[in-house]
Every structure is written in structure tokens, then in C-alpha cells.
């Protein structure tokens, strides 16, 4: 019964999406307030019905209603409640429903909280959202119905893959989808602006909070995914350049470029066509990511049950939406005014270069992911692209970008001077040099690249701290008061750039100084590894709720003291997993993985991962910076009616 209600809600939502698509677009064209209001109502109602449909599916999972085919395939009664709920999005159909849910909620949010937008713009944004929603709801209803029934219903369902039964599962996909789908709002804004023929600072001010609102969860989702892979998969890797990981990185890179480009557009009216193009492409990459996971075009760790037929549908959606948007862009963008000019040495230029590098990096990831398909089509040759490719392309291109990150906030708008800039950069440069020297002395010449990377990380951190730091230094207020009076946008920017520095620090540490070893250990045996003494104290069989495990306990004598580690090798009904034993410290992790029994003992593999925790700390700090920025009231006050203003004299960096 509940499933049928959900099905019905979905169909109603589809119809409402069609109304939401048609009414406001016509209404904006004819400046008809009734139609535009209808669009807002339809959007809110659509959100309500999609929520109802999602709730229905979730209820079926939680209640273990095995007459629903999806539930029978992904849940059973032994599965803990949280994972029964999370299994709602653990399948293609369910995750598509989550996609549509978030799309509808964002649309409803624009309808509800977009009161400060120009009415025709808001209407057009809702119209485009409605079109996208209708397309995906149609896809869902006609090809991927989550509410299909099984007759007769089996008494018990298939358990969700135990690898996925983890707190990370509960949060990783929703966060990612909040990001992917969130960029649909920026896309809608871009298309709406092209339809209106107006892209200006006011538009940028309206769109920026929505871009941030998508960027933040995407950053969190990617970071969380990497962290989850690290502790769950059992071999200490944290990024594999897997096609689906790449599918999340590409929109992130372009979304970051979009964020900065919109800032320039808002402050200076410059880069309008760049910003629009980025908004269109970011969401298009989200769509391509969706295509990648569900179509079977590439094999991936993450792929759902692949179905080329569904892939064709999604390809069609991409073709229609991205194609129409880009055609509109080709038609309307050349007429956009380019705003005030800027000199090579200016913040606008810095951000332009930033965009250039981020776009190139996104191109690297795109080529690495999809070129094998094209090469196979053209030559019949099957090649594969793995981490070594990215080491030679992504890394060398990322380094200049990271160096430039410090320049950006230090530059003034429109026109800056080298001497003044040099003065501002003196402190971060000194910090970087000092840290680099220190690491060189302690680390040795062999790791020159790592030393350079850590110096670069210090450059980033010092540069980020310098922004509020200089305000405090220049003023007479106390540090606390200075922080309180600094706009949240500035603090957010400092946190985000600092997060980037920490990310680089972690990557440098673990890439340069990682060690590992593998050996067979008997209970009671002791071995030394990476400055620690590890003893296998016990080895026994234990039982879990739905698995049997071989549990190994270790006693470790480390640099700072002694501690115990417990690792497991679990056998579930359908597969095996490893629960790695990880000891976390700011300076590095000890990662111990337990394998199969051998010669009366057990195979043990150990890794030392120096500085690795800073990778995810940095990632989350970036997201935190975004959150702080989002809280800035300047972002949320709508742009008032434009009055002619004199251009202010370029002041010191805000």
C-alpha cells in the first residue's frame, strides 16, 4: 500500500514538474504575475510530493517490505536499522529518487527563499529547474521505477553489500548529491540569465550563495568518500582516480572556478560569459557523472548494476539540456557586456588565471577518464589510465595553481603594483622558506620534491593567515575584536585556503614518506616497523550480528607511548571484508591490516602514513570556510536596484 502511495506521489510530482516548467517560463516571457506565482506554487507542491515518495520508499525499507523488488534486493531483517534506511539510496532506482528529491527541494528553496530575486529571473530559474525535474522524474517513472512489486514476495531479502554497511554510507551519497544537484540551481540561473539577456553584478550576487550551498556538501562528500575508502577498504589508499571518483572531482574543480568567477562578476562586472559557461558546464559534468555510474560505459568500483539502455536515456537528457544551454550560450553570450577592464596585475587577473588552471585540471581528469573510450572507438586498442598518468599531468598543473592561490586575495582589484604586492607577500614567503629549510635539514635531500611541496603548503597556510592577520596588524583593536569585525566572507576565505594548505601537507607527507611491510605473525611474536614495536598479542574467532571474524589484537610501543590495536578479517554471507586497525596521530598513522591464516599464524600488513590526517582535515576545513562565508549577510541581502556609483579607489585587499 505504501509503495503504491509512493508511486502515485511520484506521478503527481512529475505532472507538477511539467507545470513548474511551463508556467513560469511563459509567465516570465509575458510578464504575467499569475503564471509566475503558479510556478512557485507548483515548485513547492512538487517538493512535497517527492518528499512523500521518498518517505514511502524509505518506509518500505525500514519495515522490510520484501514485496517491493528493490527492498528484497538490498535489505534483510538482520541488517541494522540505520543501514536499512540508508539502503534506500543504495541502488540505481533509489539513488535516482534521492537525486530527484534533492532537485525538488532546491527548487522549492528557490521558490520559498528567492523573494529578493527579480521576479522574472526567479520564474525562469524555476522553469528550468522544472524542466530538469520533469526529465528525471520521467526517467524514473518510465525506466527506473523504485516501487516495482515482486510477486510472490520472498520471505527474506538479500543483504546490502557489507562494505556499504558503514556510517560513511549514510552520509556520503546524500552529501555528494546535494553538491551535484545543487549545481542545477546555478545552471538554471545561467540559462535564465541568458534567456533574459542580462548577466550583471546583481545576478552574480544572487547566484553566489546557491553555488556555495552546492560546493560545500560536494567538498564534504568527496572528503568523506576518501576517508571512508581509507579506513574501510583495508589497504590504506585514499584516492584511486577511479572513474566515479573523477566524476565527483570534475564538477568540484569547475564549481570552485565558478565560485571565484562569480565573485569577480559581482564585484567588478567582469567575466560574465566565463561565469555563465562555468555554471552550465559544472552541472553538465554532474549529469555526465550520473551517466557514467549507471550506463556501463566504464567499469568502476562504484558502478551500479549497469544498463546501457538507461545510459542512452541519460545521454539524451544531457544532450537536450547541455546542448540547449550551450546553443543558447553561443547565441546570446557574445552580446554580454564585459564590464570594467582590468590590468594584468590585479585580483581579476589572478582569478582569471585561477579559472584557467582549474579548467585545465578538470580537462585532465576528463581526458583521463574518457579517452580510453574514444581511443578504443578510434583504434580498437584498449588502453587504461591509472594513477601514474595523473601523477604526470594533474600534479604538475596543480602546483602553479596552488602557488597562485596566495596571490589572489593579496591583490587589489583592477590594478595593483609589484612593490606593494611584494611587501604583502613577504611574510608568507619567509614562512615558506623557513619551513622548507627546516624540513630539508630534518628530511634530507632525497625528498626534495616533498620538501618543496611542504614549503608550498606553508606558503598557503601563511598566506591564508595573513589575510585577517594584516587587518589585525594594521588596526589597533585586539585580536578578538578584529576577528569579530572582519566580514565572515574574509574569514571563510582564509579558512578555505588554509584548508587547501593542510590538504597539500597531508598529500606531501604520505606520498613521500609512506612505508609498508608484510609478514606472517604468530601470536606472541614481535616485530619492529617505522619506529614502532608491534606485538601480536592474541588471535581468536569472534561473531558479529551478521558475520564471523578472525580478530587479531596488537600491542604497539610507539614514539609517544603504548597503545592497543584490534583488526578483523570478517566473513559475511556473500563476501569478506577487513576492518583495519588504525592508530591516528597528527604526525602520522599506523595502519595494520589482517589477512588470511598462514602457517599457524596470520598474514599482517602494516603501513606508516605520515601526516595523512591533514588531508581530510584540510578538506573539511575548506568546507567549513565555505559555511562561514555563506553566513555572511552580504551574500544574502538581495542586490537592490542599481544606482549609479562612482568606482571606489582601489583599497587594500578586503
Amino acid at each position, binding site marked *: 500500500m505504501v509503495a503504491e502511495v509512493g508511486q502515485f506521489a511520484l506521478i503527481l510530482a512529475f505532472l507538477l514538474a511539467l507545470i513548474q516548467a511551463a508556467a513560469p517560463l511563459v509567465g516570465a516571457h509575458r510578464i504575467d504575475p499569475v503564471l509566475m506565482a503558479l510556478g512557485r506554487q507548483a515548485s513547492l507542491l512538487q517538493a512535497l510530493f517527492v518528499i512523500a515518495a521518498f518517505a514511502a520508499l524509505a518506509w518500505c525499507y525500514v519495515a522490510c517490505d520484501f514485496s517491493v523488488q528493490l527492498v528484497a534486493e538490498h535489505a534483510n531483517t538482520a541488517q541494522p536499522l540505520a543501514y536499512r534506511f540508508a539502503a534506500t539510496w543504495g541502488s540505481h532506482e533509489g539513488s535516482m529518487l534521492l537525486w530527484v528529491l534533492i532537485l525538488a527541494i532546491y527548487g522549492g528553496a528557490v521558490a520559498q527563499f528567492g523573494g529578493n530575486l527579480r521576479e522574472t529571473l526567479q520564474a525562469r530559474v524555476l522553469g528550468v529547474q522544472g524542466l530538469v525535474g520533469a526529465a528525471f522524474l520521467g526517467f524514473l517513472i518510465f525506466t527506473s521505477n523504485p516501487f516495482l512489486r515482486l510477486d510472490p514476495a520472498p520471505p527474506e531479502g538479500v543483504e546490502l553489500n557489507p562494505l556499504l554497511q558503514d556510517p560513511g554510507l549514510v552520509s556520503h551519497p546524500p552529501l555528494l548529491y546535494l553538491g551535484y544537484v545543487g549545481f542545477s540551481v546555478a545552471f538554471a540561473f545561467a540559462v535564465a540569465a541568458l534567456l533574459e539577456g542580462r548577466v550583471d553584478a546583481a545576478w552574480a550576487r544572487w547566484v553566489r550563495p546557491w553555488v556555495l550551498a552546492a560546493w560545500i556538501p560536494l567538498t564534504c562528500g568527496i572528503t568523506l568518500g576518501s576517508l571512508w575508502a581509507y579506513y574501510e577498504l583495508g589497504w590504506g589508499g585514499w584516492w584511486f582516480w577511479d572513474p566515479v571518483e573523477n566524476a565527483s572531482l570534475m564538477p568540484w574543480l569547475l564549481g570552485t572556478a565558478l565560485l571565484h568567477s562569480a565573485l569577480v562578476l559581482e564585484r567588478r562586472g567582469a567575466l560574465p560569459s566565463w561565469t555563465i559557461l562555468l555554471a552550465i558546464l559544472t552541472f553538465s559534468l554532474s549529469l555526465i557523472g550520473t551517466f557514467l555510474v549507471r550506463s556501463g560505459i566504464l567499469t568502476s568500483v562504484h558502478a551500479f548494476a549497469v544498463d546501457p539502455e538507461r545510459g542512452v536515456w541519460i545521454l539524451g537528457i544531457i544532450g537536450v539540456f547541455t546542448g540547449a544551454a550551450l546553443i543558447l550560450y553561443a547565441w546570446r553570450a557574445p552580446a554580454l557586456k564585459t564590464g570594467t577592464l582590468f590590468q594584468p596585475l590585479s585580483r581579476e587577473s589572478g582569478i582569471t588565471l585561477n579559472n584557467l588552471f582549474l579548467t585545465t585540471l578538470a580537462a585532465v581528469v576528463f581526458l583521463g577518464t574518457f579517452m580510453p573510450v574514444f581511443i578504443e572507438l578510434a583504434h580498437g586498442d584498449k*588502453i587504461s589510465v591509472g594513477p601514474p*598518468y595523473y601523477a*604526470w599531468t594533474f600534479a604538475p598543473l596543480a602546483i602553479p595553481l596552488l602557488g597562485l592561490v596566495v596571490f589572489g586575495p593579496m591583490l587589489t582589484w583592477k590594478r595593483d603594483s609589484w612593490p606593494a604586492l611584494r611587501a604583502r607577500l613577504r611574510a608568507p614567503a619567509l614562512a615558506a622558506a623557513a619551513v622548507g629549510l627546516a624540513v630539508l635539514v630534518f628530511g634530507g635531500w632525497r625528498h626534495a620534491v616533498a620538501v618543496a611541496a611542504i614549503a608550498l603548503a606553508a606558503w598557503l597556510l601563511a598566506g591564508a593567515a595573513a589575510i585577517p592577520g594584516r587587518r589585525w596588524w594594521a588596526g589597533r583593536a585586539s585580536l578578538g575584536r578584529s576577528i569579530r569585525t572582519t566580514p565572515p566572507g574574509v574569514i571563510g576565505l582564509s579558512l578555505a585556503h588554509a584548508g587547501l594548505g593542510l590538504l597539500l601537507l597531508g598529500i606531501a607527507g604520505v606520498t613521500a614518506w609512506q612505508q609498508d611491510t608484510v609478514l606472517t605473525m604468530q601470536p606472541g611474536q614481535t616485530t619492529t616497523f617505522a619506529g614502532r614495536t608491534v606485538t601480536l598479542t592474541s588471535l581468536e574467532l569472534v561473531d558479529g550480528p551478521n558475520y564471523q571474524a578472525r580478530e587479531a589484537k596488537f600491542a604497539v610501543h610507539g614514539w609517544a607511548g603504548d597503545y592497543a590495536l584490534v583488526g578483523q578479517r570478517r566473513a559475511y554471507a556473500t563476501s569478506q571484508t577487513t576492518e583495519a586497525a588504525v592508530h591516528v596521530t597528527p604526525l602520522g598513522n599506523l595502519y595494520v591490516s589482517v589477512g588470511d591464516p598462514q602457517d599457524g599464524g596470520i598474514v599482517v600488513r602494516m603501513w606508516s602514513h605520515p601526516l595523512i590526517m591533514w588531508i581530510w582535515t584540510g578538506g573539511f576545513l575548506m568546507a567549513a570556510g565555505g559555511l562561514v562565508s555563506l553566513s555572511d549577510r552580504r551574500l544574502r541581502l538581495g542586490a537592490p536596484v542599481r544606482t549609479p556609483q562612482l568606482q571606489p579607489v582601489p583599497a587594500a585587499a578586503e
Partner: protein
Amino acid sequence: MRRPVIVAALLALAGPALAVTPDEQLRDPKLEARAKAVSRELRCVVCQNQSIDDSEAPLAHDLRVILRERIAAGDTDDQAKAFLVKRYGSFVLLKPPFEPATWALWLGPFAVLAVGGLGVAGYWRAHAKGPEALGPEDEAELASLMAGADGGE
């Protein structure tokens, strides 16, 4: 028709990368280090995106053993890799070869950077000129205005 590669892959994926078991390792640590480095560049063809160093699949085990045999027998890294490429194709290399078919892959990023860089440079050059010098008529008019301003009041 797909073989139950999926099951094998899941098993391989789900297990830890205790891939290189102690009994596989070569005695000579330098050779073992080389073997490890090379096996990190080789793809496990029955897995979903793992190197043979990381994978627990039986085929990965076989390939690791063969690789170590070749290296212990005196093959260079390239020769050892070529041995496997001859049997399984370029697909087994995680670093794609640099050949005409892959030029777009390797050079593409730098081409994008170059094109974009030229665009930015072009913009700078077009807009970096300072204020234009005044023509003679404007100079005269300016002079008279200035004289008028001094003389007046």
C-alpha cells in the same frame, strides 16, 4: 556474456591488499623493491581499478609471481612490463604508453593550458595600454582651458 568476474572482483576488492604475501617476496630487497614498483604500474585485469600489487585476485597473484620471476631472471623494468603487455595488451599498463593513439591524452591538458593562456595573454595585451596620448587639437584645447582656469577668479 560476462563471467562471474563481478564476484571475483568483489572478493578481491573486499579483501585487504595483503596481496603480496610473504612467500611471494623476492629475497633480494632491491629486486623486491623494483618488483613492487613495477607491479604498482600494472593493472589487475579481472578487478575494477586495482594494481596487481593491491589486488587479492588469484590472477593478480600469478602475475606478481611471474613478474618477480622475470625481474629475478634479469629483465629490466621495461622488459618485464613488455612481457605482460605482449600477453594482455596495453590495457595492463596503468600508465598509458606515449604513442600516436594517446597523444591527445598526454598532450591534451597542456594544449588546453596553452590555448587558454594565449587567450588570457591576448586579453591583457589588448587592455594593458595606458591612457592614449592626446592629439594636437586636444592638447591645444587643454592648454587654453588650463590658461583660462589660472586666469579666471
